[in-house]
């Protein structure tokens, strides 16, 4: 009987403990009704009497430029009384999914849209975006504001209206180690031949120093176009003028691919054909790359001694062109812009914010805290005096020649072809000609099916 008493007590304790835990848990749960659609907000409090609309909501993704952007937009309420409510998503896909949903449903939950130009085709062609001149007939784009290769226009409509405004620059930059180039007496390279010459002197795997690096894992396009297009070729002959002749696999294209996989690959780190942007960033900051191509966002932290082993040693310059007949500088632009949704309830306030954010003052503040600006006057301002901002010069150089990826609704399918066949070509499974021809064929079939006037070259 004694045993039974003890075990009963034990049971009672266990039972009581479990019941308490359950009750506590249930009570907590009951008082904390989860709100699945509640955005993750990062706004600051506002104390001003000039009340227009209380806040503007914009979707965004986690990215290095968001820190600078948020710090800058925190200044907006002080001037106008309107908060900027950033809804941060962990990835570009998540952010785009929410915006697509909002657009098709017409919910008006976002007062402004934000995305890189590759997504514009879908939204603009479906009429989910209101042109700026429709919101304010007197609107004229600021000539100092760069449009990134006609991104904010919609050539197909040919109405001359501006559909969005750029607020920061995500473009390809060419990064190089000034100390290494100075050591051998080299100037920043302008052509790929220059790059190879520098690599020959500098590349030394035994000391963990590689001559060149470029992120080439899927999605391949952003960092691969600068190399491919620098030989004078492109995907289509001129899609801004609706010439859909496929030229990706012409002689220049094959030459470009062979250059990459045979000549340049010698100086790249092992596994080069599958390195991601964060891998290249890691190599850069560890001081293992003499030169590399990468998005402007990699500038973040290169001078931070906690993140980088080479503070102050990295500079930026123009993405090289090929030493061939039609060779050209061809950095890519992601062209992130703000757009006004058709369903937005605060269009005038949205336009005001867009004008403010792309204006001189905001861009100046934005650049001061490390953001990549998109105004030509900022890039010649006194900000350049600060050595921390030395990359602005490289940005200015690249923005002069920047090219956007082809904008058409089918671009995402085309990107899938690139992501399927280019890695195989890089790895050597397909020859340059085979890989590029396959891509050309796939793109041709797709575009033909969609009714474009497409030709193979």
């Amino acid at each position: 009987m004694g045993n039974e008493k003890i075990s009963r007590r034990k049971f009672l304790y266990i039972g009581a403990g479990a019941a308490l835990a359950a009750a506590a848990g249930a009570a907590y749960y009951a008082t904390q009704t989860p709100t699945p659609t509640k955005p993750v907000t990062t706004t600051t409090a506002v104390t001003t009497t000039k009340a227009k609309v209380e806040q503007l909501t914009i979707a965004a993704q986690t990215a290095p430029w968001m820190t600078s952007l948020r710090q800058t937009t925190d200044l907006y309420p002080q001037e106008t009384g309107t908060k900027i409510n950033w809804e941060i998503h962990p990835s570009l896909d998540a952010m785009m999914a929410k915006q697509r949903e909002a657009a098709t449903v017409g919910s008006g939950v976002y007062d402004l849209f934000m995305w890189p130009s590759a997504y514009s085709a879908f939204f603009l062609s479906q009429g989910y975006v209101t042109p700026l001149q429709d919101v304010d007939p007197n609107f004229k784009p600021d000539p100092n504001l760069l449009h990134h290769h006609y991104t904010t226009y919609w050539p197909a409509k040919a109405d001359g209206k501006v559909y969005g405004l750029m607020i920061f620059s995500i473009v390809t930059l060419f990064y190089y180690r000034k100390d290494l180039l100075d050591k051998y007496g080299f100037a920043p390279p302008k052509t790929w031949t220059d790059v190879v010459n520098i690599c020959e002197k500098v590349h030394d795997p035994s000391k963990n120093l590689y001559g060149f690096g470029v992120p080439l894992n899927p999605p391949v396009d952003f960092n691969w176009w600068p190399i491919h297009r620098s030989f004078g070729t492109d995907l289509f002959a001129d899609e801004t003028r609706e010439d859909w002749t496929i030229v990706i696999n012409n002689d220049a294209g094959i030459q470009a691919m062979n250059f990459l996989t045979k000549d340049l690959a010698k100086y790249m780190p092992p596994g080069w054909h599958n390195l991601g942007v964060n891998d290249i960033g890691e190599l850069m900051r560890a001081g293992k790359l003499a030169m590399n191509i990468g998005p402007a966002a990699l500038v973040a932290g290169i001078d931070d001694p906690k993140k980088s082993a080479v503070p102050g040693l990295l500079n930026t310059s123009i993405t090289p062109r090929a030493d061939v007949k039609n060779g050209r500088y061809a950095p890519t632009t992601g062209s992130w812009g703000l757009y006004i949704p058709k369903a937005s309830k605060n269009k005038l306030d949205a336009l005001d914010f867009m004008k403010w954010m792309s204006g001189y003052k905001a861009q100046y503040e934005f650049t001061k805290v490390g953001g990549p600006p998109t105004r030509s006057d900022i890039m010649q301002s006194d900000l350049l005096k600060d050595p921390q901002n030395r990359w602005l010069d490289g940005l200015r150089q690249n923005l002069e020649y920047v090219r956007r990826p082809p904008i058409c609704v089918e671009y995402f399918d085309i990107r899938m072809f690139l992501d399927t066949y280019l890695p195989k070509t890089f790895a050597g499974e397909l020859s340059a000609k085979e890989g590029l021809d396959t891509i050309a064929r796939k793109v041709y079939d797709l575009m033909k099916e969609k009714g474009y006037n497409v030709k193979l070259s």
Partner: protein
Amino acid sequence: MQHYQDRALEALKYFCVVMTCLIILVPLAWTVVLSFETYRDLITMRFPFTPTFENYISLFHPIADLPTSMTPFIRNSILVTAIAVVMIVPVGSLAAYAICTFKFKWRIDRALLALSLLGRMVPLICLTPSLFLMTWYLGLYDTWLGLILLYVNLNLPFTIWIMKAFIDELPKEIEEAALIDGCTRLQALKNVVLPLVTPGLFTAALFAFLFTWNEFLLALVITHTAQVQPIPIFLSFLSQEFIALYGEMGAAVTLFVIPVIVLTFFLQKNLVRGLTFGAVKG
């Protein structure tokens, strides 16, 4: 000669044991050490390095690079796991008890065991499209309740299995004796059976906790905001497009794993018994 051979063999055996232990422990220790290094020291493999708590702090106060701090995820994990475990153990154990002791008219016991087997055999990934749609239609998408219900369901087969093995082990006579003494079924259950299977209950609870705490795919499919998502989802945020937050990865893994190791340290015997009961007893 024989002596030498034997000693050499002994030495070899112990060497293998030590090597295996190292292979298991060194990666874990290395990850913990890594969590105290700054990004710069990490990627250049600087040694010696100055240890820092920054990675841990940045998990909770993200300055840049993280969409949200780890706090809501920890809260979600603890909440959902606690409630799920408290629900699973009684539900599963009582069902196991019923299957073991009673005869069922329409073979419901067989049906229940068959359902459990089905639950264990069909990979979860196969059911994710339909679970996604189901939770969407029922309004359980992105809610704690949805997660809890699905976690309970996930763990029921194993709980029933384990408890059935434990209860089957008990000699029937003890219960019969109590019944003859005049107890009702419930009293017999409470006073006689329960104390005897307590180790089994702890084992079942331990496994339910482990499987729920560690579950990733289910949470990935039926949640999508930080208000509801458990810790494993947070871990997947640490590898990003522009920078892979290695130090934070080490820190997050360390924090995530500590409760598991602590709990298992106290319940070691239960762990092994549970694993082997599932196996040895077939």
